[in-house]
């Protein structure tokens, strides 16, 4: 019968390909296969995915050639050359993660810009016992919903940006008594606004909220929102808009003077600085989700990174490039540490994973220390600045750097609880 034969053939083919794949995976012991997963297609690819990949590629090339500046020496990770496997996060993150680990045999994964992906992939990483570093997604739920053995994050969670934003507003603008918010209508936007408004109201209870707008993610057209915000004037408008939406908002607000009459607080504004400098009014508060991009502190490592990036890609690196780079560097640092501790020059993945826990290492944006959630979550410095156009060039003045112990919940505390309790134990100067 036709059906039976066809199905038999199909099964046999699948079987054969599966065995071949497994055989291939078994042979590739020498290079370290690293999965680099981010959005390489769709609207997120331009502002986040591609710069991330560029930054990571640059570091990987330097690792493989042994040209990383001090304190990194020796080529490769544990002596092994890195072989990158690019996977597009836009397609079925869980299935493609499984494919990358089981079928393509990656040894470790650096990835994920979307909180949804991180939430979905974390349990799979634990199940498949594969070292996975989250480099960009901001959800606090990853570790707050349960400790992890194989999952690490080399960047702050999103609540931190908004807590720091609240403190910055208080520090530089004591005339702010009313706030409005325009944030994208999904987890990222909703939680950003929640964390910012709650933090600000904790620190200054008399602050009043005027409008809370949540336009659809990727709406692109904000004419009505700009009108609504203009009608209901506040002293400050908070927005965690990013990428194309951020650009559209800035472009559409500029001729209508929205951010001139009401100060804008753009927590991810860093990406728009170079391209839309002329449309951003002086006095707008700009964040970079950490301390990468334009707010990276001066250092030799930073100079090297920026020079190499400009040479290779013809433009200055934006902060997503920094954050994926620093995730890859975590692996390198952990391997170096494992090698030093064990005395062997070729530590295996288990040793690297053990060394990664609680590690502190150097990146182009300064030191990154994984000292939250049992050594799995990074706590880094965070900076905000105020925009000013100087000689036609975008600059940030009044830069305040917040140290982790000021704006990050202490070990063991849940972020929202910490905010609502009034930040017990925060050490700010």
């Amino acid at each position, binding site marked *: 019968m036709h059906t039976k034969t066809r199905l038999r053939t199909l099964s046999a083919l699948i079987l054969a390909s599966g065995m071949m794949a497994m055989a291939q995976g078994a042979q590739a012991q020498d290079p370290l296969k690293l999965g680099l997963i981010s959005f390489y*297609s*769709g609207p997120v690819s331009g502002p986040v995915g591609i710069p991330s990949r560029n930054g990571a590629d640059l570091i990987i090339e330097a690792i493989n050639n042994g040209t990383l500046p001090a304190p990194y020496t020796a080529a490769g990770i544990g002596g092994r050359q890195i072989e990158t496997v690019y996977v597009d996060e836009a397609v079925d993150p869980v299935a493609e993660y499984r494919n990358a680990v089981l079928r393509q045999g990656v040894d470790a994964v650096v990835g994920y810009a979307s909180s949804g992906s991180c939430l979905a992939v974390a349990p799979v990483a634990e199940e498949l016992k594969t070292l996975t570093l989250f480099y960009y997604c901001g959800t606090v739920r990853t570790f707050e919903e349960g400790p992890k053995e194989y999952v690490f994050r080399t960047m702050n969670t999103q609540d931190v940006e908004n807590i720091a934003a609240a403190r910055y507003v208080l520090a530089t603008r004591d005339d702010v008594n009313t706030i409005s918010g325009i944030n994208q209508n999904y987890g990222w936007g909703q939680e950003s606004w929640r964390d910012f408004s709650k933090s600000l109201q904790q620190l200054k209870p008399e602050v009043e909220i005027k409008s809370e707008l949540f336009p659809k993610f990727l*709406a692109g057209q904000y004419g009505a929102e700009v009108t609504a915000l203009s009608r209901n004037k506040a002293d400050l408008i908070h927005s965690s808009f990013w990428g*194309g939406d951020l650009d559209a908002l800035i472009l559409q607000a500029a001729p209508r003077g929205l951010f001139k009459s009401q100060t804008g607080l753009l927590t991810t504004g860093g990406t728009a600085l170079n391209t839309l400098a002329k449309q951003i009014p002086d006095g707008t508060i700009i964040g970079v989700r950490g301390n990468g991009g334009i707010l990276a502190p001066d250092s030799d490592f930073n100079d090297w990174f920026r020079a190499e990036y400009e040479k290779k890609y013809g433009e200055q690196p934006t902060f997503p490039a920094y954050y994926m780079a620093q995730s890859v560097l975590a692996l390198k640092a952990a391997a170096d540490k494992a090698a030093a501790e064990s005395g062997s020059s070729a530590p295996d993945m288990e040793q690297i994973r053990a060394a990664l826990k609680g590690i502190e290492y150097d990146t182009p944006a300064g030191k990154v220390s994984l000292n939250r959630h049992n050594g799995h979550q990074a706590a880094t410095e965070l900076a905000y600045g105020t925009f000013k156009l100087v000689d036609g060039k975008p600059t940030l003045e009044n830069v305040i750097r917040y140290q982790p112990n000021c704006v990050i919940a202490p070990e063991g505390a849940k972020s929202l609880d910490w905010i609502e309790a009034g930040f017990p134990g925060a050490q700010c100067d």
Partner: protein
Amino acid sequence: MTFLAIVIDGFIYASWLFIIAAGLSLIYGVMRILNMAHGSFYAIGAYTVASLAGWYWSAGLPPYGGIVLMFVIALAVGALVGFVIERGVLRFLMDRDQIVMVLVTFGLLLMFEDIIKLMWGVQSYYAPEPYSLFGSTDVGDLVFVNYDLAMVGVAALVAFLLWFGLNRTRQGKLLRAVIHDRELAITMGINVRRLFVITFSVGAALGTLAGGLVAPAIAVTPGIGIEIIVLAFAVVVTGGLGSIQGALVGSILIGLARAAAVNLYPELELFVIYGVMALVLIFKPRGLFALASTRKI
């Protein structure tokens, strides 16, 4: 004041919706194709204007010339792409089911997503100069950009031209005959093939025009085609597929509803478009100005 703000916002949004929806409705009316690739036309219009016109403006050439260039580029590219697709792909599937046509255009939409990416890369394109070119108008406390208000004018002009073209010219009469009954029109000797090419090109040109006009106000990034298509469908279905006045009324309805929601009940903003569409369909299952169609037994 709130009321006035809602009306102005609503009409600005509606005018932009109308230009997209008009092309879609026209193509459906004449050719019975629900063109999902319309989203791609929009994207192509945005990209072309942002890159070519953007280059023009950065070169410091006279800005108003740029406006003319914008229209010319958008319309020309649209007509060209429309022509190529109609002749190259759609022509061969003319006797197939409507649903099959939707799926073919869906396939084209997917293809174009990557073709656009291959041609323009994944970085964002900006051409903000024209947006502030005409200055702004103060209405009480609020500031409105004259470019947006001009968009209303453009939409009105498009509506007028379409109406005039369909109702007062000979070609228009032929088109209306085809809209009502294709088979009979063929029997009467009308060159339906030629009309199809013209219609699809015009419809595509309207799609690219919408994209081109919006480009100065946004960052042109991959994916804008996919986002826009569902919106356009909602408008066209609400108004009644194939009807230009339906597209007009539908876009005004949805534009005002959305502006009202944003200004008064922001929580509803996500649903309001689909809500309006669903509501209209419950009472008028074929849309507000559905084309009369005979039931063939």
